[in-house]
C-alpha cells in the first residue's frame, strides 16, 4: 500500500511554527533518481502482487501438514476439533488452520526482525544522524542492498532511507497478521502464499538491520579474512570480572566494550556473549569471547562465571532473572521487548543503580540507554566480582556431589520423557552413582540445555548441572575459533563464482543457518559443513550454526574456520554473521542474477526468483531451527526458490513443502527461447523437508543443489557428489538417478559403468537442456511460439 507514497523524514519539529530544522527531502535518493536501472513491475509489493509466483511454486511443492494436536484453540468459539475432516466453529478446516499457524509463526518472526531493525535504525540515527551513509563493503560492494533493491525497488544510501523500508515492512506485516484473525483467509494455499510474503519481508528486514549496524560500527565490511575469535567456555578467564551479554541487539554490548576501552579496563575484564549479540559483538571487537549458542545459557550461568548478565532481546531465556539470582549475578535488561518486570532505571543516577545492584538490593534493573548500560555493566562487574567471591555462585557439583546426586535417582524415566531429545538420563545416573560419568558426559553433547528434565525430577536432581559436571573436562576444553562475521559478499566474489554456480560447476552453495535445537549435538553441523567444504561446495553459515561449526577440531586441532578459508568460493566456510546476516545469503543469490547475469533487480522480484530457482544451486540447512524467526527466514528462502532442509525437530514447524519426483507432469519448465514446455526432472525436488538423520540431510543437500540450468558438466559433478554420498551413507545406489540424467553427457565419467545399466533399464531418452523458466512472461516468443 505504501507503493505510491514516499515518506520524507524531518528532524525535530516539536515546537510549532518556524522550527522545521533538518528537513531533508530525499525523494531522489529513495526512488532512485541517481539509479538508472529500469523499475520492475513490483516495487514495494503487496502479497497479492506475487501471489501467482507463489502459487506456481506451491503447485509443485505441496504442503504436508503435521498438526501438533487435533485442535484449534485460537478463539473463544473453540477449542474446535478439526480432526477427521471436521471444521471449526468458524468454518476453517485443518489444512487452513495449520497453514495459519505457520503464517502466525512467520509473522512473529518477521516482526521480530523488523522491530529489531526499527530499533537499531532509530537508535543509530539518534546517535549518528540520519544522513549516515550506508556502507557494507566500500568499493567492494556496489550492489549494497540486493534484497531491498529487489523487493522495494529503491537503492538506500543513508540510514534514513531505511525508514521508508521499515514503514513498508510494518504495514505489510500488519496486513499479514490480520489475515490470521478468525474468519479471514480460508484457503491453505493462500495462507502459504502469505507465509512466503512474510518470509520475503523478513529478508528485507534482515538486510536492513545488518546494513545499519555494519555501516555504523567497526564490523568487518564484506571481509573474507575477518579475524578469528575465541569461542567456548574454556576460553574465558574467570579470574577477571566477567560480563555476559545475551540476545540479538548489539548496541549495549558495543557500549560495554567502549566504556571499558575508554577507562582502560579492556584487559581487566572479560566480555563474553551467547547467541547473536555475541556474534555481533565479536564483529566489533574480536577480543570479546563467544560462549556458545542459545543452549549454553543455563550451563554458563550456573557455572558461576559471569558476574553480570546483560540481556537484550530475542532468544533469551525467560527465567534469566531467576537463574541470575541463584548465582548472585545482577541482571541488566536493556530492551523494552523484555522488561522482565524490572524497574526502569534509565534516568537514574548510575551510582545509585550500581550500588543497588552490587548490594543485591535489587536483583536487576531495566536500562534502555545503551551508553548507560555500558557504564553500569562494567562498573558493576568490577564491584560485584568481589562480593561474589564470598558467595556460592557455582552450581556445578563436584565429583563426589555428583555421585551423591546420582544415587538419588529412582529411575522413574520422567526426565527422559520430558527431554526434547529423549536422552537416556536414568541409565546414565545409574552408572554415575557408581562413579562412572561417561554416559552422563555423552548426554551433555546432545543436551540443548532446556532444563525441562529438572522440572519433572521428583528427586530434585539438578540434572542439567550433573551433565555439565560429568562433562567437566570436555567443558573446560571448549576452546575453539570462529571467524568473525564478515557481512556481505563482495561483488567481485560474485562475479567470479556466478558462472560456475549457474552452470553447476560449483556444485552448490550450502547455507548452515538457524538455532541450536540440535537433535544430536552441535557436532553434526560441523561435520556437514566440513564434508561439503571438502567437496568444494561454498559453505555459508550464520548465527548459532556458525558457532556450532566452530565447535569442532580435526586431528590437527584445527577448527573448520582454520581448516577452510572464508572466501565466497569453492571450498570456503563463510561466516556471514548473526541471524540478521542471513540476508547476505539470499543477497548473494540475488546478486548472481544481477552481477553475473545482468538482470535488473529493481522491483523485479518474480523474474529474479525464477532465475535463482532455476539456476542457483543453493540449499539452506537449518539443522537446529527452533524459533519463529527461523520460520520466517526459511520462508524468505522458499519464495526465492531456495530449498531448506531442517533437522528432525524441524518437523514441529508442522508443514513441509515437498515435490513428487514420481509425478512427471510436475517437472516441466518453459524454454525461454522457444516457449516450449520441457521436462527437466525433479530439480530441486523439495522446497522444505525434514531430514531424520544427518546422513539423510547430506544426501538431500547434494540432491537439492541440482537445477534445470545445470550444464552437463555441472550436472555430472553434482551427480557425482549425490551418488557418492548416497552410496557411502546409505550403502546402496540411489534408485532415482535416471531422473537427473538428461542425456549421457550428464553421467559422471567415473561412474559410467555403474550408471549406464540403470539408465538403459529405466529407458532414459535424450532431453534438451532448456533456458529454464516457470514464467510465461520470460518467454522470448521467437518464431511465433507462444
Amino acid at each position, binding site marked *: 500500500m505504501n507503493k505510491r507514497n514516499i515518506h520524507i523524514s524531518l528532524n525535530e519539529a516539536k515546537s510549532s511554527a518556524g522550527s522545521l530544522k533538518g528537513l531533508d527531502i530525499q525523494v531522489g535518493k529513495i526512488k532512485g533518481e541517481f539509479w538508472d536501472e529500469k523499475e520492475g513491475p513490483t516495487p514495494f509489493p503487496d502479497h497479492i502482487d506475487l501471489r501467482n509466483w507463489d502459487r506456481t511454486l506451491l503447485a509443485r511443492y505441496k504442503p504436508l501438514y*503435521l498438526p501438533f494436536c487435533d*485442535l484449534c484453540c485460537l478463539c473463544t468459539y473453540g477449542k474446535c476439533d478439526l480432526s*477427521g475432516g471436521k471444521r471449526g466453529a468458524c468454518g476453517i478446516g485443518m489444512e487452513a488452520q495449520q497453514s495459519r499457524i505457520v503464517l502466525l509463526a512467520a509473522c512473529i518472526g518477521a516482526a521480530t526482525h523488523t522491530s529489531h531493525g526499527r530499533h537499531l535504525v532509530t537508535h543509530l540515527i539518534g546517535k549518528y544522524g540520519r544522513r549516515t551513509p550506508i556502507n557494507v563493503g566500500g568499493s567492494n560492494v556496489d550492489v549494497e542492498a540486493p534484497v531491498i533493491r529487489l523487493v522495494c525497488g529503491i537503492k538506500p544510501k543513508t540510514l534514513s532511507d531505511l525508514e521508508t523500508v521499515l514503514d513498508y515492512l510494518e504495514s505489510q506485516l500488519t496486513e499479514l497478521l490480520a489475515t490470521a484473525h478468525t474468519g479471514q483467509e480460508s484457503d491453505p494455499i493462500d495462507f502459504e502464499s502469505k507465509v512466503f510474503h512474510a518470509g520475503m519481508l523478513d529478508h528485507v528486514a534482515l538486510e536492513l538491520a545488518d546494513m545499519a549496524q555494519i555501516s555504523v560500527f567497526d564490523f568487518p565490511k564484506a571481509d573474507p579474512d575477518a579475524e578469528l575469535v575465541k569461542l567456548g567456555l574454556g576460553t574465558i578467564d574467570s579470574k577477571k570480572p566477567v560480563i555476559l551479554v545475551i540476545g540479538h541487539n548489539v548496541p549495549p554490548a558495543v557500549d560495554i566494550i567502549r566504556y571499558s576501552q575508554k577507562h582502560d579496563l579492556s584487559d581487566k575484564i572479560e566480555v563474553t556473549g551467547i547467541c547473536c549479540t555475541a556474534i555481533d559483538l565479536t564483529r566489533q571487537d574480536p577480543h570479546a569471547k563467544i560462549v556458545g549458542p542459545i543452549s549454553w545459557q543455563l550451563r554458563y550461568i550456573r557455572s558461576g562465571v559471569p558476574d553480570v548478565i546483560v540481556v537484550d532481546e530475542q532468544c533469551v531465556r525467560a527465567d534469566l532473572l531467576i537463574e541470575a539470582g541463584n548465582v548472585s549475578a545482577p541482571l541488566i535488561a536493556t530492551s523494552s521487548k523484555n522488561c522482565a518486570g524490572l524497574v526502569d532505571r534509565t534516568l537514574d543516577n548510575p551510582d545509585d543503580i550500581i550500588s543497588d545492584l552490587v548490594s543485591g538490593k535489587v536483583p536487576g534493573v531495566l536500562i534502555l540507554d545503551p551508553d548507560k548500560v555500558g557504564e553500569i555493566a562494567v562498573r558493576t562487574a568490577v564491584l560485584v566480582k568481589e562480593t561474589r567471591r564470598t558467595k556460592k555462585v557455582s552450581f556445578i557439583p563436584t565429583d563426589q556431589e555428583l555421585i551423591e546426586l546420582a544415587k538419588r535417582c529412582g529411575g522413574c524415566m520422567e526426565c527422559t520423557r520430558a527431554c526434547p531429545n529423549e536422552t537416556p538420563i536414568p541409565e546414565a545416573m545409574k552408572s554415575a552413582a557408581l562413579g562412572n560419568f561417561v554416559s552422563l558426559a555423552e548426554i551433555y553433547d546432545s543436551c540443548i540445555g532446556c532444563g525441562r528434565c529438572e522440572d519433572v525430577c521428583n528427586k530434585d536432581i539438578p540434572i542439567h548441572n550433573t551433565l555439565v559436571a560429568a562433562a567437566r573436562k570436555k567443558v573446560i576444553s571448549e576452546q575453539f575459533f570462529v571467524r568473525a562475521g564478515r557481512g556481505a559478499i563482495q561483488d567481485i566474489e560474485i562475479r567470479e563464482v556466478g558462472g560456475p554456480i549457474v552452470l553447476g560447476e560449483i556444485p552448490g552453495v550450502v547455507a548452515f543457518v538457524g538455532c541450536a535445537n540440535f537433535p544430536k549435538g552441535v557436532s553434526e553441523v560441523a561435520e556437514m559443513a566440513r564434508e561439503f567444504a571438502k567437496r568444494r561446495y561454498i559453505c555459508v553459515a550464520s548465527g548459532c550454526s556458525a558457532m556450532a561449526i566452530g565447535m569442532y577440531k580435526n586431528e590437527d586441532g584445527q577448527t573448520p574456520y582454520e581448516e577452510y578459508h572464508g572466501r565466497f568460493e569453492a571450498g570456503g566456510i563463510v561466516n556471514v554473521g548473526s541471524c540478521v546476516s542471513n540476508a547476505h545469503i539470499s543477497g548473494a543469490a540475488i546478486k548472481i542474477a544481477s552481477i553475473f547475469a545482468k538482470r535488473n533487480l529493481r522491483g523485479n522480484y518474480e523474474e529474479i526468483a525464477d532465475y535463482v530457482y532455476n539456476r542457483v544451486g543453493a540449499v539452506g540447512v537449518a539443522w537446529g531451527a527452533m524459533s519463529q524467526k527461523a520460520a520466517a527466514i526459511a520462508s524468505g528462502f522458499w519464495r526465492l526458490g531456495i530449498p531448506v532442509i531442517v533437522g528432525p525437530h524441524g518437523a514441529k514447524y508442522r508443514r*513441509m513443502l515437498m515435490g513428487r519426483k514420481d509425478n512427471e507432469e510436475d517437472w516441466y519448465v518453459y524454454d525461454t527461447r522457444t516457449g516450449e514446455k520441457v521436462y527437466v526432472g525433479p530439480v530441486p525436488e523439495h522446497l522444505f523437508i525434514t531430514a531424520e538423520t544427518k546422513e539423510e540431510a547430506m544426501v*538431500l543437500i547434494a540432491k537439492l543443489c541440482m537445477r534445470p540450468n545445470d550444464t552437463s558438466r555441472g550436472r555430472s559433478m553434482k551427480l557425482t557428489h549425490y551418488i557418492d554420498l548416497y552410496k557411502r551413507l546409505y550403502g546402496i545406489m540411489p534408485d532415482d538417478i535416471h531422473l537427473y540424467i538428461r542425456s549421457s553427457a550428464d553421467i559422471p565419467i567415473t561412474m559410467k559403468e555403474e550408471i549406464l545399466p540403470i539408465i538403459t533399464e529405466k529407458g532414459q531418452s535424450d532431453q534438451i537442456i532448456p533456458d529454464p523458466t516457470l514464467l510465461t512472461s520470460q518467454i522470448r516468443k521467437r518464431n511465433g511460439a507462444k
Partner: protein
Amino acid sequence: MADQDPWIRSEMGGTKQAHVISKPEIMVAMLKKSRRSLVIIGNETISGGKRTETLIKLILKLQNTYHTPVLSTAHIFGKLIAHGIKPDANLGSMEITGRLCDPQWKGLDGNGQYDLIFVAGFSYTLLSLLLSGLKQGAPDTKVISLDPKYHPHATWSYPNMKPDAWQAEIDRFISLFSPDNM
C-alpha cells in the same frame, strides 16, 4: 464413553487417540482384513540393542510370511542389509508420509495406495508428527505403531512398555504368523 474422555471432546489435545494393542491377535486380524499393507521403519531401527534385535526379527518374519513390503527411511538401507533385511524401497520419512496422504499415489509397485501401515524405529517426537500427519491426511488408513511407547496419533499403538515386556509381546505376535493367518 471411556472414563477419561473429556465430555466436551475437544477439551484435551486430541479427540481420537490410538487404541492400545492389548493382544497381538488384533494385528493379525488387521493384517487379514487389509488389502495392501506396508511396513515403514525409521533410523532408530538400527540403533542397536534389544530394540534392533526385536524389530529385525519381526520385520523379517513379516516379509517372509506376509510378503509385506518394507520401506526404510533415512540412511539405514545398507545397514539393514547387513542385518539380513532387504527393504523394498527407501524414501525419506516425510516423503513417504506425503505419498501416503495422496489418494492418487500408486504405491511402491504401481498397484495403488496402502490401507494398513506398520511403523517402528523412530524417535518419539518425529513419529508423533508423522502419525499426526497421517491421521490428518490419510484418515482411512490404519496405522499401527510397533514401538514400545504409546502414540496417541496412531490408530493402534503399544502402550509404554519396558523393553522385556515389549519383546515378549512382539514374540507373541510373531508366534501367530502362519500362512493360514493371511
